């Protein structure tokens, strides 16, 4: 993952509209997209299929509570 990810407080949400034929297809596509971006802990927070595709909000967790957070470093010492 990119070094910038270390600065993500907890998660990255990706909102978009995917052209597809079903909610299942939309979900598969968006999760693949997040994995391709380098996220490992991924899920859809919200997905709605209508007409041409899905309106979707997907999430890749970078830091979950209890982890060792990349942003928790003393400025200048990283």
């Amino acid at each position, binding site marked *: 993952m990119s070094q910038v990810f270390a600065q993500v*407080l*907890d*998660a990255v*949400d990706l*909102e978009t509209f995917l052209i597809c034929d079903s909610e299942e297809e939309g979900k598969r596509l968006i999760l693949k997209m997040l994995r391709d971006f380098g996220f490992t*802990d991924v*899920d859809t*927070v*919200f997905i*709605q299929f209508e007409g041409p595709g899905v309106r979707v*909000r997907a*999430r890749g*967790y970078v*830091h*979950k*509570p*209890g*982890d*060792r*957070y990349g*942003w*928790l*470093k*003393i*400025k200048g010492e990283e």
Partner: protein
Amino acid sequence: MKKKVLLSPIDPVHDIGLKMIKRGLEEAGHEAFLLPPDLKPEEIIQEGIDKQVDIILLSRTLGYGVAELLGKFVDLAEATGLRDRVKIGIGGMAIRPELAAELGFDGGFGPGTTVEEAIAFVEGKKYNPKAHFVKKEKKDMTATYDYTYKHPEIGKLLEQIVDGILEWAKDKSSPGIERAHLREEMIDLRAKDGASQELKKLQEEYASYSDDMIANFYRKGEIISKLRRFTGEEYRAFKDFVQRSRKNLQTPSILQHVEGQPIVWVQYGTGCPFMDIAHIKVSEAWGADGVVHFDPSWAARTEGYMEGFLTHEENGSVITPENLFEIKNALQDSTLWQVRAHRGLNVTETVVLAGLCGADLTKINIAYGSMAAGTDPERLTVDSIEAIKYAAKFNLPYDLPTNEELAGVPAHKAFAGMLISTALGIRLGARPILQPLFAYSPEVMINGRMEDNYVDFNAAKIYALRSIINAPIWPGAPIGFLTQTEDRVQSSVTTGLHAGLAASLGVDAISIASSDEAYSGGPIAAPSRCDTLRSVGEVFRNLGQTRIQSSAKAKSWSDELVLGIEQVLKAVLKKPTFVQALYDGVLGSKEEGAYPGRNGAGTIFTRNMV
């Protein structure tokens, strides 16, 4: 000294900013002339000469050809001699201060410039942005209430019930109460030098009133396997993070647009105090006035608390003295802080820790905690009485959540339970805060009371409570419960609209959810907190002092609620004790979805046996 100021767009379109600045200048005692749009530079300069102004303020919205046009203006001003005696500033969407300086203007004001900043330029003063911010301060929600009963009959019933509760409980204690007393002594001793032997003795006594896994912490230094201690490096970095966040957040946002709009609370409890604090700093920056500490449900079922900086990966953040102290120390001075003590086996000790760690409020409600949150009614009644006494001692107001409604208990029964704990608090010298739900509860779904709108039944609740007692009201928790979905926009809008209703009803505070609160697949993410805080701020701005109007149904439902409350209180008095009324379902039956909790059953003892 009074100045003559010429304001002119150097644009084919008008700039609303200049009109606002004109008004500001006139209010500040200056003379201001606003020219129409689309004048040539020569015409503007001629006006400046004719009117003998001291200052010219131009605005430019369009970016196309801006450098050439403004350069030409400055050249002309110099050629006519105007430049030598008139100060010239330029602002607007197309302007950056660097560009203005490069072209020879005395001041350049980009997007986001305030009227105050323009006035400071006119008056030749250094602009101090902080001078115009209203300082955010903590508010005491209970300050203006005297807790008098407006419904004498209900007041009388409540007083009788309280008499019975206090008589029944007078010689009773529990492991939780004993630990609370010990905790108070332990924290007191920790501040003293050379008290380690005495502290060890108290810790051993504390362990004797605790579950094995807590006792093992004090006797063997073992922590529960799901928890871990922070490393020294993490702790140092955390302190650095807090310090930087404080420095960067010198003026937290204010959500309320007009005086009297409710205080806005958010709830945290990610499982990790450091993550909590990061979320708190985000919430403070986006305008939250208060934060509520959520502890884990497993800890509420456990007798006793550990010590140290502890984190884990489950919902709810572990209560220890160190965790609470660190959270408190990280808060902005203006942020209200509540530590919940409404259910579980550590209710009394939680209030002690809340008080000693500097919390502003706590949360106690016997009926909810025992009927819908798993704690044995007898145990919770005994512990809550002592907790309320501590709340009074530490000057901690407490709110009374009625979330048993979410299990299916009708509002009038939940309110009867809430009012009993309210009356108990008043008797014991504490300051309770009523917390009705603003929710699409099972009761309203079954009875169709929100088929048309989400306004009337929620309004009815407030009208009913106000007709019974003069007490503060803090709808929660969070507002709009069961109206929110995983859809970010829908969730933010419904939260905002419920906040607008709360503002219209003039309540004292609200608790709000994040826009991903309905998502159950993982922890809440910080930007989702920003969503709903922004939404509430926008609705407060939109409404100002106007009001959302409820229909006539709200009044009739309010009357029904009051009648129902009175009947329930009478039914409570027919039982041998208040606790028996809880067991027997008077304040919420099994058929309605309320079950007397079992945690802590059989642990009460009489004081003379201690």
